[in-house]
């Protein structure tokens, strides 16, 4: 081991953001108090929306918000709420998203985005009345025909007219763009390394060798870090459907989707790591299936199908090969075995002993089905449309997916998943680039326009937010249909690398 080997993470951007997601037990005061503060803010916003101002529920919610704010200013010296990308920061600390608070986080992000607010500085003397004015204005300014920037200016003016001085608003941080570019680069590096390591893993197992568990761990750690810090770029890369490397990209994609769903469900960093490891290994049994069967383009004989259908249990046996692990990867074995079982256990293999499907297996099953159906493979040269796949998973109970987890998956990917080719009512083709961060805009993703109204293909195209409205308050662009990119010679992956 020498320092002459490739320094892959030598830039400052690779500084590990290990402080970002501690588990609850080790949460600092600001994280705990911050979460309570955000939840109280959300409660106050809802109360204001539902009841008249004099209602006791409104008063109580505002008092609670003011009190939480004072407590934080008292302990931290100052209090600033800042939104950046998909995250909320309190002073310099990023708050952790989990199942209990994701609705409140999402709502607050939406409202800040809609009003063009990037940061909110709160003074120690902010009263319940001040909060009432601010929150009412935020609520009212979120809709309209003008741009978020114009709404922000309007909001500032109104706040000033109302004589509220305990809050200082700021616009979104301009550095976000540069950060996003860096994140994108890191995501590409993580993705390509993950594919390379997965390839190495599968080959090692096929040759009967013991794969390097350290590399695999590092890859999953990288994916977890990426998903926790900036998931959009990495999820975007799952749209690359490398025909030749399908087996390996598929495993990496399933890992990425699974970790991202896990994040939505509020799993801790170490739980995400467990989930990611299990997901990356889910198809390891295929390395024990003859390649000529795996790559057969014509229809499979019964015996060949039996070999393919054996990969879940073959995976369990293959995972016993990982002797380098301090402890055998039992959780990954369970997931490898169960990922085709379906929630009613009618899939394969059929268990003989009583069993309740693991939650991680259910998550991986969704990620696996989605990626497999939307990818081009030797025996599936025309992949299914991601939106249709999503709909099928949602509506067809025989697919055996957990409906609640499918919902969580749709929350992650949007109704039109990343990589979907869509036809817009503006006679343009677009490729879904990212889910809209505004929670109730799941059907209006961020889209890259890839053809103009004359039918000319564009590269790299331009990003547009389908939630944007024109001066009349009408959405500027709306998806009317999804299309098969292969039919028009559009290589979706090109728009993500």
């Amino acid at each position, binding site marked *: 081991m020498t320092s002459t080997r490739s320094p892959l993470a030598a830039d400052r951007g690779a500084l590990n953001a290990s402080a970002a997601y501690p588990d609850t037990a080790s949460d600092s005061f600001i994280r705990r108090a911050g979460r309570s503060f955000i939840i109280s803010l959300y409660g106050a916003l809802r109360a204001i929306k539902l009841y008249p101002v004099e209602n006791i529920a409104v008063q109580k919610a505002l008092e609670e918000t003011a009190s939480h704010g004072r407590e934080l200013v008292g302990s931290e010296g100052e209090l600033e709420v800042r939104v950046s990308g998909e995250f909320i920061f309190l002073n310099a600390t990023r708050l952790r998203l989990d199942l209990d608070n994701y609705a409140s986080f999402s709502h607050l992000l939406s409202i800040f985005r809609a009003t063009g607010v990037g940061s909110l500085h709160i003074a120690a003397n902010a009263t319940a009345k001040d909060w009432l004015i601010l929150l009412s204005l935020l609520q009212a300014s979120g809709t309209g025909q003008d741009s978020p920037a114009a709404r922000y200016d309007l909001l500032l003016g109104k706040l000033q007219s109302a004589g509220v001085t305990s809050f200082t608003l700021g616009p979104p941080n301009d550095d976000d763009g540069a950060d996003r570019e860096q994140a994108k680069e890191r995501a590409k590096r993580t993705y390509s390394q993950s594919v390379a390591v997965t390839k190495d893993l599968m080959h090692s197992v096929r040759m009967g060798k013991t794969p390097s568990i350290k590399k695999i761990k590092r890859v999953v750690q990288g994916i977890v870090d990426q998903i926790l810090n900036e998931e959009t770029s990495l999820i975007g890369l799952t749209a690359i459907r490398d025909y030749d490397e399908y087996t390996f990209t598929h495993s990496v994609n399933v890992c990425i989707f699974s970790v991202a769903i896990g994040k939505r469900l509020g799993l801790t960093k170490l739980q995400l790591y467990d989930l990611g490891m299990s997901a990356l290994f889910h198809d390891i049994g295929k390395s024990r299936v003859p390649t000529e069967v795996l790559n057969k383009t014509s229809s499979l004989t019964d015996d060949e199908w039996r070999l393919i259908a054996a990969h879940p249990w073959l995976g369990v046996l293959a995972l016993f090969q990982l002797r380098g692990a301090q402890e055998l990867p039992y959780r990954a074995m369970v997931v490898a075995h169960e990922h085709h079982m379906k929630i009613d256990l009618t899939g394969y293999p059929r268990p003989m002993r009583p069993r309740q499907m693991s939650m991680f297996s259910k998550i991986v099953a969704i990620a696996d089905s989605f990626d497999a159906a939307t990818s081009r493979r030797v025996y599936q040269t025309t992949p299914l449309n991601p939106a249709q796949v999503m709909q099928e998973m949602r509506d067809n109970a025989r697919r055996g997916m957990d409906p609640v987890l499918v919902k969580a998956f749709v929350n992650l990917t949007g109704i039109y998943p990343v990589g979907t080719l869509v036809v817009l009512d503006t006679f343009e083709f677009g490729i879904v680039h990212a889910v809209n961060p505004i929670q109730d805009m799941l059907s209006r993703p961020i889209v890259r326009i890839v053809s103009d109204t004359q039918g000319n293909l564009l590269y790299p195209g331009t990003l547009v937010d389908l939630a944007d409205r024109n001066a009349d308050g009408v959405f500027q662009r709306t998806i009317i249909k999804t299309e098969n990119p292969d039919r028009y010679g559009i290589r979706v*992956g090109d728009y993500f690398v």
Partner: protein
Amino acid sequence: MKAARAHQLYLPNNPIYKGAIDSVRAAFAPVWSQTEELELAFSETEILWNAHPVLSEEGKSSDSLPWLFYKDGVRELTIVKGFENEELVKLLDILQRVRKASPDEDDLLTLLWEADFLTLRYRYVDLAMEPAAPLADGGEIQQAPPSEIQQATSAAVEESRAQGVVNIQDFDSTLYFLDEPEIAYLQEEVRREYLVDLRNNVLAILLDIFEQQADAKVRVEALEHFETMMVHMLAAGHFRGVAYLLREAQVAAERSRDLQPEHQRRLSDLAAKVSTPEALGQLLQALDEAVELPPTEELGELFLQFRPTALATVFSWLTRLQNARLRPLLEAAAGRLASASTSELVRLVGASERDVATEAIRRCGALKAQAAVAALGKVLTNTNAALRLLAVQSLTEIGSPGALQALERAVEDADREVRIAAVRAFSSRSYRPVLVRLESMVKGKSIREADLTEKMAFFEGYGALCGDAGIEFLDSLLNGKGFLGRREDGELRACAAMALGRIATIKATESLRKATSEKDVVVRNAVNKALRGVGA
């Protein structure tokens, strides 16, 4: 450096350790007066702060702090205020683990990642990773002409305009919001995910594979994993898992199609292996010495799986067990095994290890094991009197004609206790075939040299079996006068009185009454007692 060494050498409550940690904490104070963040860089032999070496160590061993970081790829640590109070010890723990780690274990990078520090960041070069080629969609693809694309978009727009509406379900985001019960369900699922016993789960999977796949190679592979997992689970104290494996291995042996005899044998051997003296001895020793025992029901499940071959070891440990909580469990296991496998129990009656033989003899009696009679009879020839006595007691408990027949020779045993126990057994069981032997003994000379207790036992035994036929002899002892009117020894007369009391017929009572005014206190008391016994 001193703190790292102290962490390595001393326990946390050691004053030297505390002193070292306190010194490090104090040393951070002047740093924080100068800077918000402390950035340390690592070379192979040095730690640098602002490009100035603050620690140099020439060696490249796990004792060298710079090398410890450098070798795993860490090139920079950034420490922020509060680290010394909140996370210093956590870092020292990690360094200690890395120092001792084998090449298979997690490296520093993984441990730092898992520790999820709040006040420490690190920059690293990943030495394990190769540079990877960027990916792109592969395959040849023919771009459609603009006219085709234009036609497609126009047709789609016109179609949607003609329909006037779109499928509202696809656009209703609220359909995808998780409601409270769904969130509760997911939370419960997350909780369950980490409550489930993974090893048992994997065992169940392996057992399913074994049963469903008739391929010999697959079965051999599964068998190897069973064997390895069993050892690991035993070592880890995961007894419920071992019990589950042994139980389900039996099920698998019964249900598996086309099971080869060799595979069947290996499945059965799993339980047999745990029951071998070596394996079981290790287990019981570990449990006996354990500060905290596993849950009782978990141990109970395991003990249920012991095979008869475990019996000797279990018996042996019953006598030396120190742990009071373990004893009832082992007692129960011994009882179950003994009653389930009489042949093994009988075999152990003749065990060379005395504790084992003792326990086996005792349990043969408790179980009234008829099959043990011959073995117990053999014990009566053993040189150890305590064992012979136990054998007498067991044969008595068995109480069958065969057992009592085997016991006959014991009335002439060299040991007094054995003789007494034997004769009392015959008396209580009214075993008449021994009467001739008893009569010759009570009429013989040797009984006169015995102590009162033994004499009494033999005479009472004789009285219980002889009936009226013995009265003449006994009456002559109690009431008869010899040469010059001399009477027999008082103790012997008292014994005869008690024997007559056992006969308890009218004739015997009459004989006793004749002695009611006896002057010898011992005799008189015996007579009165015997008369009370017959209700006279």
